[in-house]
């Protein structure tokens, strides 16, 4: 498919199992943590295996320059940033075009759920830092960002939850990891509002049929339901000792 790259493994799927032993529909181990930073108003960590993202929310605070203030809404500013040491080969520090694009699509996804009209003229700054990258970094970033926003007390309709799906060696897979990202055929980043049929982020690279697209959308939604559950659990864990029992 489109020329071979150096270092391509001969197979990505062997006897139905992926290189790290997972079944096609399995996640890597997911870790979540909320309220990890002292100065940020809200913060969270989300990990898929070796992919590690941290998000911090500052604000709402006064926005400068005043001329750019939106008199009716808070302005959401986002920055997705990869630490140079996050990849095996040191990546150049600073924003790249890729990180600019990712910052933009994440911002647009979050704008769908935040009640920005409750803080007119202010700025809400969302910073996502990738500390370790093993594919699906924008996915981990947006999952962390969602929890960080809730931790900061920014009113939202619901959380945003995301997964990556794709195709390697002709097999449809969930939670695309390193080698699968580099040498697989299809990589699809998906985010929805909670576990609802409302897609707020979608990026697809690779050739797919309409049927595969439909199947992947379904796989993504199923995986997202689990991510959403884990995000909510993490938020509840933030306040140990609180009561949660529902009315009978």
């Amino acid at each position: 498919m489109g020329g071979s790259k150096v270092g391509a493994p001969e197979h990505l799927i062997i006897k139905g199992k992926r290189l790290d032993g997972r079944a096609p529909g399995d996640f890597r181990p997911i870790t979540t943590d909320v309220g990890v930073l002292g100065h940020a108003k809200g913060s969270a960590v989300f990990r898929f295996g070796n992919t590690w993202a941290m998000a911090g929310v500052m604000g709402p605070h006064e926005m400068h320059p005043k001329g750019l203030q939106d008199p009716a809404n808070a302005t959401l500013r986002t920055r997705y940033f990869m630490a140079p040491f996050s990849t095996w080969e040191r990546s150049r520090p600073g924003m790249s075009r890729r990180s600019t694009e990712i910052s933009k699509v994440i911002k647009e996804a979050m704008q769908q759920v935040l009640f920005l009209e409750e803080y007119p003229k202010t700025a809400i700054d969302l910073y996502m830092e990738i500390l370790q990258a093993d594919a699906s970094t924008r996915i981990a970033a947006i999952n962390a960002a969602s929890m960080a926003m809730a931790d900061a007390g920014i009113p939202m309709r619901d959380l945003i939850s995301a997964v990556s799906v794709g195709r390697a060696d002709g097999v449809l897979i969930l939670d695309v990891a390193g080698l699968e990202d580099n040498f697989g055929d299809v990589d699809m980043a998906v985010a929805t509002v909670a576990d609802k049929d409302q897609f707020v982020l979608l990026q697809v690279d690779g050739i797919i049929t309409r049927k595969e697209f439909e199947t992947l959308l379904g796989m993504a939604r199923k995986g997202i339901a689990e991510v959403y559950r884990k995000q909510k659990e993490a938020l509840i864990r933030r306040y140990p000792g609180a009561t949660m029992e529902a009315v009978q």
Partner: protein
Amino acid sequence: MKENFMHKLIESGKRLDGRAFDQYRPVKIETGIVTSAEGSARVKLGNSLVVAGVKLDVKTPYPDTPNQGNLMVDGEFIPFASPEFEPGPPSEEAVELSRVVDRAVRESHCIDLEKLCITPSELVWAVNIDIHVLDHDGNLIDAACLAAVAALLTARFPKFDKEKKAVVRDQKPASGERLPVVDRPVEVTIWKLAGKLLIDPEMEEQESAEARVTMATKEDGRLCAMQKGGKGFFTSNELLQAADLAVEKGNELRSMLPAL
């Protein structure tokens, strides 16, 4: 307010200029307009105007693809194109546009990158596509992709000095072989406005839109890249509808491109 007016219009099944929801404005594609570039194209889509130029040079290949040429797509929104465009480094919209077009060109494998290899691991052709938006009246991505692909289809290799391992810049138009282009990807952006799906909005419609999803298709109709943008959301059904539209309208646009 404009938005309410637009929403009511769309809800009643009508558009400002009377077009159908799945109808493109008139498209005009011209190629070979810039002789200093190895390839070039000018696309007018309604009143939107985009020019793309292809420049070739020889470079060392990327370490993980020693047998392939390099491909770069850049985009600029020229300030006279719209009061919204400011001078300075590319805005996030400009960056997104160039990356979305890049996705279509790269994922469709429309350039046979291995045929751009001169000496493996040492020297390859680097293809630089620069897209300049000169007038913004909506739906820039579709126009930009048409311009980039049209420019690639008609681009020619410049003179190459094998001894010096450098391109000969003799200020004459490139007259070598055509580039190894083997596919004609097309991008169709489907927009959501007042809960309905439509294509090719003019500026006013675009400003009222809730969300958009761009889908790229290859010559054989298969999808090869997608990007959702804007604040709103799409349901699964809407995404599948969009995929069908992308294939159908993609074929239409493709028929206006130069042949392979």
